[in-house]
């Protein structure tokens, strides 16, 4: 049943990996604010603006409009 050590070993390695990631993320302040991100993720569509037309209607402010580009 050496294979038990593989499954346990790999599980623990994966777990340790996630644990390190967890500590890192806590340290980097990922979870200091547990409300704003949930609101922020709702925004990105509205953020986009058609630069040339300078449209005032929010409906037009969809992301996929073809516009000038600096590239």
């Amino acid at each position: 049943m050496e294979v038990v050590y593989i499954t346990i070993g790999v599980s623990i390695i994966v777990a340790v990996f996630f644990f390190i990631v967890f500590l890192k993320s806590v340290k980097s302040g990922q979870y200091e604010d547990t409300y704003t991100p949930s609101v922020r993720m709702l925004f990105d569509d509205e953020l986009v603006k058609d630069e040339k037309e300078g449209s005032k209607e929010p409906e037009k402010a969809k992301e996929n409009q073809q516009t000038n580009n600096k590239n």
Partner: protein
Amino acid sequence: MSNCFHCGADCGKKPIKFDDKNFCCNGCKTVYEILNASELNCYYDLEATPGTIPSEIKGKYNYLDNDEIAEKLLEFNDGETSVVEFYIPSIHCSSCIWVLENLNKLNEGITTSLVNFPKKTVRVTFKNKLTSLKAIAELNTSIGYEPYISLEDADSKNNKVDKTLIYQLSIAAFSFGNIMLLSFPEYFQVDGFWLEKYKYLFRWLMFLMVVPVVFYSAKDYFISAVKGLRHKILNIDVPISLGISVLFIRSTVEILLDIGTGFFDSLAGLVFFLLLGKFFQQRTYNFLSFERDYKSYFPIAVTKIVNGEEKNIPVKDIEKGDRLLIRNEELIPVDGILINGNAALDYSFVTGESIPVSKNSGDKLFAGGKQTSGAIEMEVINTISQSYLTQLWSNDVFNNSEDITIKNLTDTISKYFTIAILLIAFVAGIAWYFINPSMAFNVVTAVLIIACPCALALSAPFAFGNILRIFGYKKFYLKNAETIENISKIDTIIFDKTGTITSNDKTQIHYKGVNLSSEELIAVKTILRSSNHPLSRSLYSYIVEKPFEEKPEEFKEILGKGVQAVINNSKLKLGSASFLNVESNSLNETAIHIQINNKYKGCYIFNNSYREGTKEVFNILAENYNLIILSGDNDGEKPYLEKLLPKKTQFQFNQKPEDKLTFIESRQKKGEHVLMIGDGLNDAGALAQSNVGIAISEDVNVFSPACDAILDAHEFEKLPVFFKLSKKTIRVIKASFVFSFLYNIIGMYFALTGQLTPVVAAILMPLSSISIVVFVTILTNWISKKL
């Protein structure tokens, strides 16, 4: 009737029309224009009427151009890029997040802005070349998000959240899970033949994982135990540390000598549950601060006039004899004398009374007042540390650090508990030494392991944690769990009057009587302009008509009665009922009666500003507590209060802040446990001195003095319920103590008979912990059902 498109306020009769939308004021319209021009009008799609009315900004943030001040506020500055975090109390909805995170569209010097909603802050990263701290502060203010910059910010920046407990808890959780996994084989398949070969590996892996749990996750228990012992106190951490050490040592010995698998899973589980309790109890209300002192009220800079030129200097550099310019809405930081201009000072920070006090040239101004009528000039007579208000903070009560000797319920019990288990262990050890010497070590360690009061230590944190959570939902925010315990011990409750049992709303004025013509209203207002009585001031601002330019003739003000004058040949008499010789409606009512040309017209009633339910609250509390009103005001309202409140209520008027403090001190010396409820800075000393200080606040987002708890003013009526619940919580905890003792007795049976195997411990420990947690959680929820 229309509502402002921007802030939702009632626009009144003449809304400002712009872009087919109604606005209540030019401020709101301007914000709309700014956002519209930058294509940020999505702001209004996310929430209806999300805005706030912007306040005046002229020159307000000039001091941010002072490098010394700016440097203190910036979190980061490498010469090119800077980062600043502003506290913005008006953040309240998702539109706020949206617009504040799009500041870069309003000012191209801003790279990013990041909102932290719970903390109500925005972090702005900007390019020094393109913009400045001042410009950003002004930008925010111009769109209704005025940053709050105070002396405190400059003194204590970068106070990072302490994450130690999170690390300790997650390490314990991680190790607990993995150790459980590794210890299972030996529980479930003791004679597995391959297990014989590999169990050593498992055991040492467990050992490896438990080391950080003992030496990092659990270290605070050891530290606290040692501290307690130094003070000759057997606190709960003593038996816990003893249990953890014994578990660790015995388990290590077992695997070293190949006696058995040890108790590593129980050990990790124990620490995990203990820390979980600690974590649960640790409630943080990011948007509140319980530690505010005058620094958080005070600006960090003022405008000094040197040879006719304005110059921004940090507040701490103010010297006697300096001439300061105080703009509208600015706070007076030091005591001084008014030189120029009309001062109307709002001392609500200090006294709770928000009706402005008028001052004339040559009058003395005290620190803490907010100027409300244009710019004034003043001369400094006291530096900041010597000013009347700040001197209060030199009192010792503000410098008392947490006293270790405070005994809480758990520690009281643990004293006897610890002595008892040590005795049991000792006796059992001796007994077994005679019965079977080889078992003595086992039994003694088993007793210490099983007696490790995990369940005992858990019940209070979970009960308190849960109650804190419930109170928080009901807008009674407690600084920490000890406050609940302290509330339960209270026998005397002291109330501040103004702002505490009266509400600060000044707009509750209504008119009763014959309708006044516009002409008459103008006349009334013109007369009121000359009166400095607080009621006059409020009525003056209540009447919207524009007063006459000319001064009234024959103006006469009779102190405590009213005013009379002639204007445009009409003779007006304004004042109290007795002044006009009319019947007063009730004792309770404060009113300005109006008589024009000897004809009684009617009266403006200033609605009884005592909080709703004051009477009921006092009546209920009177059953169990001594009640005292401790007010800085004169005793003018005493007769009314005596009628309103229960007989045994005592009154103390004309109390200066330091008087309040000493008064509480004297009561405490008599052995009373005092709870003080107040609101203004003048109560700060009293709140700090009392056993429990509760600050009451109309809007918890604005400021309240240092205290143990903050109560939303609208929940004032529930005060007796909160107190009652705190007492009940203590009872729940006591009941759970009994419960956990039962577990200890069961465990003791296994320990004393030498049958405590790792499996038994592994079952008993989590079982007791979890059932205690469930028990207290259900009970606390149940008792607070009616809240």
